[in-house]
């Protein structure tokens, strides 16, 4: 059913999505916390920039990233100056692009959970002797964990489902940038509808399972009356 090339594409996609999800959480959680707490006048600008991939066609984002990562772009020059390989048409480049592309899907659920928590738990923790860092790890993270879980699932799924940006900056290199969505595209181009069906079916099942899990989880929490509470 699945060819070796299909399996390579699936493996590459899972690897990409895992790495990207971890990076997204590392970047997105502090960013969401900053957006929740800040009164800086840059807040709207930063929020808008993060949300851009929600409305921008992936080709536009991909195009700018391609230019930036190319040999004459600022990122490309930086990589060359550091003696590193160019990011365009590489797995690393794909990771960078995917992080930018999926960032709003991670920042927004986490930010919502942090806002719903309110300031009272933080005041309570401070009144019991917890400093800012202590409060972040012992109050903010546990109380926004449902949002973080949602964010991780959405970030992973969105990266798996990405196509346009990959095609623009990664192209179609087996084992490096040829992810499932590109592999399906190739199958269709080659009129291999049987192979396309198998992969498309897997993607459909995967996406449904992810969303089903998400809604079941969120619904159960709402029933338990835990708006910001811990995991069930």
């Amino acid at each position, binding site marked *: 059913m699945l060819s070796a090339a299909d399996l390579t594409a699936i493996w590459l996609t899972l690897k990409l999505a895992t790495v990207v999800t971890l990076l997204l959480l590392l970047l997105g959680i502090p960013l969401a916390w900053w957006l929740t707490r800040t009164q800086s006048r840059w807040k709207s600008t930063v929020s808008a920039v993060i949300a851009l991939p929600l409305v921008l066609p992936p080709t536009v984002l991909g195009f700018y990233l391609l230019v930036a990562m190319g040999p004459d772009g600022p990122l490309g020059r930086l990589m060359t100056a550091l003696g590193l390989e160019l990011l365009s048409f590489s797995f690393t480049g794909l990771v960078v692009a995917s992080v930018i592309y999926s960032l709003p899907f991670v920042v927004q659920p986490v930010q919502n959970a942090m806002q719903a928590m309110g300031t*009272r*738990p933080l005041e*309570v923790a*401070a*009144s*019991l*002797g*917890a400093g800012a860092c202590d409060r972040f790890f012992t*109050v903010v993270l546990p109380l926004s964990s449902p949002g973080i879980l949602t964010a991780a699932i959405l970030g992973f799924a969105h990266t798996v489902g990405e196509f346009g940006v990959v095609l623009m900056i990664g192209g179609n290199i087996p084992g490096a940038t040829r992810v499932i969505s590109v592999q399906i595209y190739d199958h269709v181009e080659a009129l291999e509808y049987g192979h396309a069906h198998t992969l498309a079916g897997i993607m459909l099942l995967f996406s449904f399972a992810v969303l089903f899990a998400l809604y079941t989880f969120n619904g159960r929490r709402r029933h338990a009356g*835990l708006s910001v509470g811990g995991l069930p």
Partner: protein
Amino acid sequence: MNSTAPVSRGEMYLRFFLARSRFSLDVDLTLPASGVTALFGPSGSGKTTLLRCIAGLEQAGIGEMRVNDEVWQSVDTFVPLERRPLACVFQEASLLPHLSVQGNLDYGRRRAGRRQCEALADGEAQRIIEMLGIGHLLARRPQGLSGGERQRVAIARALLANPRMLLMDEPLASLDQARKQEILPYLERLKAEFNGPLIYVSHATDEVARLADHLVALENGRVLHAAPLDKALADLEAPLPLGEEAGVVIQGEVSELAPEWKLARVSAGVPLWVHDRNFQVGDTLRLRVLARDVSLSLEQHKDTSILNIVPCIVEEIRDDERAGLMLVRVRLGGPGGAPLLARLTRLSVKQLWLVPGLRLWAQIKSVALVY
């Protein structure tokens, strides 16, 4: 800025100025650094804001605060809340929802050392848990507790942090009458055992009468009155706007029991009979007598159901907030006795020819035991 304001050991000095769009707080206070100080006033009077300034939750634009000889806030100092050796009990449920009751109790206890509070010994911690009657709740989650239970856990959590100062922001306001009566005895026990200052925000006169030693009355962000409770309640120069609840508190000691009548005799300069709630001779009680429950008479009537008829001397007479009524302050027994307020009609005052210095009898219709 003023950095030479006098503050001696056993006192705390507060000065805060904070301006909001529709509200400003402007206070300059010296308070005792022990006992219960009530911040009292209607909603919007600034009492919670003042408490938040004391805690360090609110950073007033101009602020100064010293406790004993420690500076918590000045022009160039601001000790953040987590470094101040205090603990707070908030108005509504404030338990950390992701922790069990035990987890909540441990949260403050484990961090006590970070702000120069000694960690509490296990035995002492156990005693506090028992005092608040929450031993059977330790494994539970906050979501499954009743309002009264949550507030008891919050009080225990504050005490387990072993603070040197306790701040309470209307801890009973979110509870119904039955739950209030459930918590009040715990607060009284706490008051008896806690050594440091306890600052208690409330708009309920009965709570203040029951718990406070010192009263700060606030209105529109300004201090109306700051004095020991008994003085503040009996002051006619600058009366508190208490309306029907005007009255005094009197401290006394149980001197005699009359079990056949279920009565106890309390000596407060003069003897007063109160309902015996299994007191022992020597117990100290706090009594509350409302001005509307006191009438004055030139003779000692024997033909009345009123038990407490005591000699007194008129000290001061003032118009009441309500037209046609007057407040009369008398001293029980004689000029040095405890003050008592009586609310009389203007006509009665005229008919009895009441003037300062006149000796007469006060008939006290009811004495509320508050402690």
